[in-house]
């Protein structure tokens, strides 16, 4: 059976892709494509914006208008697209290094601004493309090329950060469960305001190289075992939750989004400017 994904791959395909065998990025990209289709979006009115890194190569492969922007700045380009033309559906693809370190300031401000974008964080806890440096979501004590004695820093929880910063919709999926992941992304696209979907995944090449986490299959199995639905997590103690990844929806709010609010300013200003013209 031909799936939606084939229909959305770029006609002159830019394949083979850059991702390693066993990488989770393909699963997430496929979930995004299915979610866009399920949300009933006209593909001509979708713009996919990414930054720099393995995950940020994703837009090249799919048939939407796309901006492969600069490192950490996907949200800034996306904000420009959305504000300049609010009719467009704008989806942001970013990695945990791109989105949470160099792009971390843009992230919290996009949440605060509650601008109608959907951001999907391909979160594999490491910088893959540059050879395995510690990322801001790397669990404390794990190894990386820049953390040969184990990383000293505590990781960001992407969802807690987004929730506290005011995003309208915050959820976490995991690559080993693509169906709920797709649902979260669809909900995010449909939601007015800023939506964040953090996706827990694996990097079987680089993460495994520094942390001996095993082959891709083992890493996927381990990841699946770590994933705990938020409802269940709510009944567990902090000790029990150590090393687990809590999945599900963390925020689902209805605060007015930036561009809708701005439309009201335009309406009011038009009236005011007519009065000004008369007084000249």
């Amino acid at each position, binding site marked *: 059976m031909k799936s939606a994904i084939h229909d959305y791959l*770029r006609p002159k395909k830019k394949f083979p892709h850059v991702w390693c065998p066993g990488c989770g990025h393909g699963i997430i990209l496929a979930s995004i494509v299915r979610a866009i289709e399920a949300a009933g979006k006209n593909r*001509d009115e979708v713009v996919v914006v990414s930054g720099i890194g393995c995950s940020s190569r994703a837009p090249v492969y799919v048939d939407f*208008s796309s901006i492969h*922007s600069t490192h950490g700045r996907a949200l800034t*380009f996306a*904000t420009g697209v959305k504000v300049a033309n609010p009719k467009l559906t704008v989806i942001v693809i970013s990695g945990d290094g791109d989105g949470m370190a160099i792009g971390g300031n843009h992230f919290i401000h996009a949440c605060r601004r509650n601008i109608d974008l959907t951001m999907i964080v391909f979160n594999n806890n490491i910088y893959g493309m540059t050879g395995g440096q510690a990322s801001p979501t790397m669990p404390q004590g794990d190894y990386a090329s820049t953390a040969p004695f184990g990383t000293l820093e505590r990781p960001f929880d992407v969802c807690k950060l987004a929730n506290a910063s005011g995003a309208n919709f915050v959820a976490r999926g995991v690559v080993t469960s693509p169906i709920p992941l797709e649902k979260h992304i669809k909900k995010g696209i449909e939601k007015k305001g800023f939506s964040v979907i953090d996706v827990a995944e694996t990097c079987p090449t680089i993460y495994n190289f520094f942390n001996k986490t095993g082959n891709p299959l083992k890493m996927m199995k381990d990841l699946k075992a770590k994933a705990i639905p938020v409802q269940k997590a709510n009944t567990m103690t902090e000790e029990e939750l150590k090393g687990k990844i809590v999945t599900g929806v963390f925020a689902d709010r209805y605060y007015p989004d930036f561009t809708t609010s701005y439309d009201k300013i335009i309406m009011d200003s038009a009236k005011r400017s007519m009065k000004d013209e008369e007084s000249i």
Partner: protein
Amino acid sequence: MLFYKLYKDADGRKVGFVQGNEACVEAALLAGMRFFAGYPITPSSEIAAVSAEKLPMLGGRFIQMEDEISSMGAIIGGSMTGKKTMTATSGPGFSLKQENLGYAIINEVPCVIVNVQRGGPSTGLPTQIAQADVMQARWGTHGDHPIIAISPASVSQVVTSTIRAFNLAEKYRTPVILLMDETLGHMREKIVLPREDEIELIDRKQTEDTPEEFKPFATKHGDVPLFAPYGKGYRYNITGLIHDEAGFPTTKTDEVVSLLDRLHSKINDNLDDIVEVCEFQTEDADTLLVSFGSATRSCISAMEKGRAEGKKIGVLQLLTVWPFAEKQIVKLTEKIKNVFVVEMNMGQIIGEVSRCSHRDAVVTGINKYNGIYITPQEILEKVKESR
């Protein structure tokens, strides 16, 4: 809140007594700016404030971003939807914008970046004048690249230069830098805005290809590719990587070279259209003052004072600072051998002037960089000392 008011004169033109920064926004709106993203920074903040007030009146949109980098990213994203976009900043912010400026260059995204220069380096002299970002405007972003930078000298020149900046950005699909300075940004002068029927506006040429045929960086129509706004059925990719005509990353050596060559040739083959200078009494001059931006004003006064004393001084204003007015310097220094380069920095554009001047010309710098505007007397004294 606006701190100026425009009135209509008998010919239906808007007139006012406004700051350079305010004039910049009025002209940008006339030129068709409909999206502005910015971040607060002295001495350019009025540009953001006036944009915030006026853009929504015309159905345009303003956003205050979280930093300088994001403002630059946002105007690139906005421009990809087909809107004319602008941001404004000063030295420290201009430094931060450089990476994304390169992105706009390589992806041929029209946009205008205003740099109201102040003293540097670093935080420098936030409220005082300098013209020390000339070389940064040229070479601030990494890699080989062309750039267009325009430097007006009066508030009414801010109006014409801003409109021109948008027109050049659209015509050549490139970011254009409007190099102002603190004095120009904050001084008030009378302006008469042209009526809409009096200005020629250029919009980037749109493709007539079908989405299937369309290539975002196709060269079949010349060095400047035709544009398709996002959201209209042309689903294409742009990337900061070296890309092929279809917009996809490439490392093929011939494609690398053809992209870099074309980015340069689309500017360098059109210098007669892009490079604009103003000459003042150069016909009989034996001494030439070369300047740009607000320092030009003191040069003109120095010229007038000098001529009253019998000194044959002429002035060349580099209205277009980049690309450099090589041809004009070559021609003028064939007959004028006594050349002074007046700039409010420690000597930046003088290197270019020396490079292009006749070998018999003596090129001397007149520089002031203490944060205080250079006076005609100071220039005249330096000219006399050198004799």
